[in-house]
């Protein structure tokens, strides 16, 4: 019996070249892979290997020099800025390395802002933001501003924010890079729980080999090329 696997991403010959004066830097060099629904995949590699560049291509924060990214069977590399913003808002959650919370908003407001943008009803997005902050263990820190939270707490607020619009995929760029061991463990366990309990597909960038144990699949990049799959 053949089981049909639904694919979240299909990446084909993805190349990204940066030009600095006459110097050409191939950050991604013909990367191809597929990501099934429900996966928890790590992108690993040394510093400068192209991990974050690849994640930004998946998160539609940047455009490739060539190649294609198919998201949910739709080619997305040539969409307009507005269409890409809509896709990011409705289907993707992005967690930045350095938390990237909005300093003038409370934890609760940071989480529900994308819900407000998506046009959800006020009661719905505010209640869901509370649930998500509960889920990441910050139910009692709703009214706290980012500067009043630790690095690990800020990163968990960022994860809750990424989930507010029930995204199909969560993209996390070295979410534990600036955290201590205890906070890192809490964040990674949160991601695993989200993957297992909510079925959210997760792609995370990490340079820490210890994170392998949390993931279901893996690609390793070196000089913009995939050198290992697992």
């Amino acid at each position: 019996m053949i089981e049909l696997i639904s694919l979240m991403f299909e990446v084909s010959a993805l190349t990204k070249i940066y030009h600095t004066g006459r110097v050409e830097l191939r950050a991604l060099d013909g990367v191809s892979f597929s990501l099934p629904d429900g996966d928890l995949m790590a992108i690993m590699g040394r510093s400068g290997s192209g991990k974050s560049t690849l994640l930004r291509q998946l998160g539609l924060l940047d455009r490739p020099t060539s190649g294609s990214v198919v998201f949910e069977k739709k080619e997305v590399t040539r969409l307009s800025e507005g269409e890409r913003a809509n896709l990011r808002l409705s289907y993707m959650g992005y967690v930045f390395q350095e938390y990237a919370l909005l300093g003038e908003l409370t934890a609760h407001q940071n989480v529900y802002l994308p819900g407000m943008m998506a046009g959800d009803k006020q009661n719905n997005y505010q209640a869901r933001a509370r649930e998500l902050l509960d889920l990441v263990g910050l139910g009692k820190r709703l009214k706290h501003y980012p500067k009043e939270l630790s690095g690990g707490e800020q990163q968990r607020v960022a994860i809750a924010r990424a989930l507010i619009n029930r995204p199909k995929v969560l993209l996390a760029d070295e979410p534990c890079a600036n955290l201590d061991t205890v906070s890192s463990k809490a964040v990674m366990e949160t991601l695993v729980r989200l993957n297992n309990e909510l079925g959210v597909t997760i792609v995370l960038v990490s340079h820490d080999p210890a994170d392998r144990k949390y993931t279901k699949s893996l690609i390793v990049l070196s000089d913009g090329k995939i050198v290992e799959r697992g």
Partner: protein
Amino acid sequence: MLKSLRVAGFLAFTSIKKGNFGVVALTVLILTIVSLNLLFVPSLLNGLVTSANDKLKNTYAGDIIIESATASSLIPDVEGLDNSIEGINGVTSVAPRNSLGAELSFANQRANVVVLGIVPEQEKTVFTVDKHLIEGSYLEAGDRDQILLGAQVAGADRPKLELYSRSLKEVHAGDKILAVYANGVPKTYTVKGIFYAEFIQADLQAFVSEAELETVNPQFAGKASSIRVKIDNQASETEVVSEIGKLRDGLRILTWEDYAGIVRSMTDSFNVINTILDVVNILVAAITVFIVTYIDVTNRRRQIGIQRAIGITRSSIALSYLLRGLFLAIVAAIAASLAFTYIVMPLEASHPFRFPLGNVYLVSGLPYLARAGLTLVVAALVAAFLPVWLALRIRILDAIWG
């Protein structure tokens, strides 16, 4: 659009609430000062024009001037025409005048004037010259051999008068002066009074009673060189002019504005000055908002990048800055309107500006306040939009990571 507006409003509100209070307060203060300037200059110029116009109408021209349009410079059957004009809806009163050039002399000083023959009681219903006496008293119907002089003619020992050097210099009420009329008739007059209306054209006038002037030129009997008409404040000058025109042929009917081109050119000049100052003020307001927004946007470039990365649309972000600019401008406009109405205007009213034509009071009202407020808001919106538009053109990654 509604959700964009909702998000924009939310972002603008939190940015004002949690932003740097000092920056917000300073911005509002600068915009308030600019707005006050937008109110003050037109109000002052308008006050000046209004004051000049009032002086012109009340001491020199009247509201409507009727002259002969025929070969004869005199209007015949003036009493009948006066009665007809007074019957027109909107006309308050009329005052016929005759005029004859004369050279006045006192001691060694000479001055050329046009002596006006008036009916004092009618004259007082059209003009307010009788309210500006600085010496002596006003003319009466039966006065003979008496003359009423403007201060710029008499001099009255007031060297600071603009035309003192061309006046009779030391004439006071009770002095006797010699008048030699253009028809060669000499008359010696006792100066009955001197008036100072603080309006040069008015203060260059000299009055005798109509009966007195008819002794100089008997042809004036029953006729007038001109008829001055006063109308209700609510009456339309155009309509009254039209009605007077129907009464009789051979009349030239002018409004005070037609008659005194000097006021029109002064008003036009003030409007040009006002426009130039408005443009400067608007530029100051726009540049202020631009700088504040530019610094704010530069400081928040990363935040804007993050907002875009999590799916906040460019229009929402731009709108949030516009709403912020709008808020600052509205607060400043309201503050300026209140300060102008309840502080500046009462203060100026108790210490009015002195101009050659007398005290000038600020003239304002809802249209002025609305105009200044609207100008400030439009300038603030345009100025706030430019830096945001530039910031939103930057790639998300550049905005977040530089």
